[in-house]
């Protein structure tokens, strides 16, 4: 297989890992918040978090593009700070994180909801602050669902296409991922390369989803 195929594969795995690492603390925190707290605007937050699941990824990408463009509200700040973001690997990471986030939140939230609240309450009576209860009781007891959510989000990131091409394009050796690579190779008639990327995509996606399901099944038992 050509070196280019391996380069695209490694790049995709690397940025998907980074995206997953970035979304983990926020995703777990939001999942816990939605599972355990009642507050004004909870339904709005739930809806907002789930939006990337139902919006066309290209539409999500367009929103990100508008925000991050030089004249956009966030892009202007980045520009002033001298940070180049759009059409770089950083934009790929962001697009992947935004699209994977809802899967992490929904799966982890279900895990937190399954934890018997008695354990958390008793831990508090034993002198543990809410933060300590979270790290020593809630998170360990929901860990299977949380890990399953992380793997699902990672799988989603691996296959991200629409939002990624909007904010990062498909620059060979720069921002080209498995999904955008397949599309580009098919478009220019390089079927062998497209098939190579396809095989790698199937293996990675199958492995990640299988592992996620395996862990999630354990969480339900």
């Amino acid at each position: 297989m050509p070196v280019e195929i391996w380069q695209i594969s490694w790049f995709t795995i690397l940025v998907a890992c980074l995206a997953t690492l970035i979304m983990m603390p926020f995703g777990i925190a939001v999942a816990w918040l939605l599972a355990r707290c009642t507050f004004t605007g909870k339904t709005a937050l739930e809806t907002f978090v789930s939006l990337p699941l139902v919006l066309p990824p290209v539409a999500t990408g367009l929103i990100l593009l508008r925000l991050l463009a030089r004249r956009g509200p966030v892009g202007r700040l980045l520009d002033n700070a001298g940070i180049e973001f759009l059409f770089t690997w950083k934009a790929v990471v962001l697009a992947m994180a935004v699209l994977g986030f809802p899967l992490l939140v929904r799966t982890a939230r279900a895990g937190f909801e399954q934890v018997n609240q008695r354990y958390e309450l008793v831990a508090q009576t034993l002198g543990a602050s809410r933060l300590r209860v979270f790290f020593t009781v809630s998170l360990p007891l929901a860990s299977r669902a949380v890990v399953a959510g992380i793997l699902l989000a990672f799988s989603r990131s691996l296959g991200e296409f629409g939002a990624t091409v909007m904010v990062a394009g498909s620059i060979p050796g720069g921002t080209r991922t498995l999904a955008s690579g397949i599309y580009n190779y098919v478009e220019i008639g390089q079927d062998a390369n497209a098939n190579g990327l396809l095989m790698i995509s199937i293996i990675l996606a199958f492995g990640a989803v299988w592992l996620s399901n395996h862990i999630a099944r354990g969480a339900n038992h």
Partner: protein
Amino acid sequence: MRTSIVLDIVVQLDAFNLEVHEHLDCEVVALFGPTGSGKTTMLETIAGLQHALQGEIRVGSHLLFSSRAGVDVPVWQRRVGYVPQDVALFPHMDVRRNITYGHSPSSVLSFDRVVDLLDIEPLFPRPIAVLSGGERQRVAIARALLSSPNILLLDEPLTGFDNAFRQEALRYLGRLRNELDIPMFYVSHDKNEILEIADWVIVIEQGQVERTGEPCSVLSGHA
């Protein structure tokens, strides 16, 4: 030395209000009454897991709640040793980690003393899942004691166990009463248990204190 307890609360429940206005000065207070009368709610209100509408909760010099003074000590700072009916041992921790969860080096009761008092040591190598009901109760009480509580709250610790276990458990509870200086609130449906362990009883029905006093006088003739 006996610790004085002020329990002067009104708690809103679905069907009725729980109202208790007691000033107690005893070692073991039993809460007696039918299911759903408000006994567990009373324990949970002392622990801070339920909120009182108004009133005052004081254990010795520790003011836990006062609607008048605007005091509502958070659960984790109340220093109450709460053992719920389902004991709620942490399933992902072993026995040692369970009992030391709330233990701090400054605890009044030492680890060794509590382990010795409740015969916990033989249980250390065993996972939580394989402990018997009685063993789970002992581990839960040890866990509560090691968090340096000012008061111990036991919610029906002997319900559902056979007579042999009850006798054994009562022996352990008697040891706690005799050897430790910690007041205890004890929820039970069983008159004999209360007569054996408690020195004061509060009879509750539909959230109201129906009778209160020494167990032998209050419970004689009570169905």
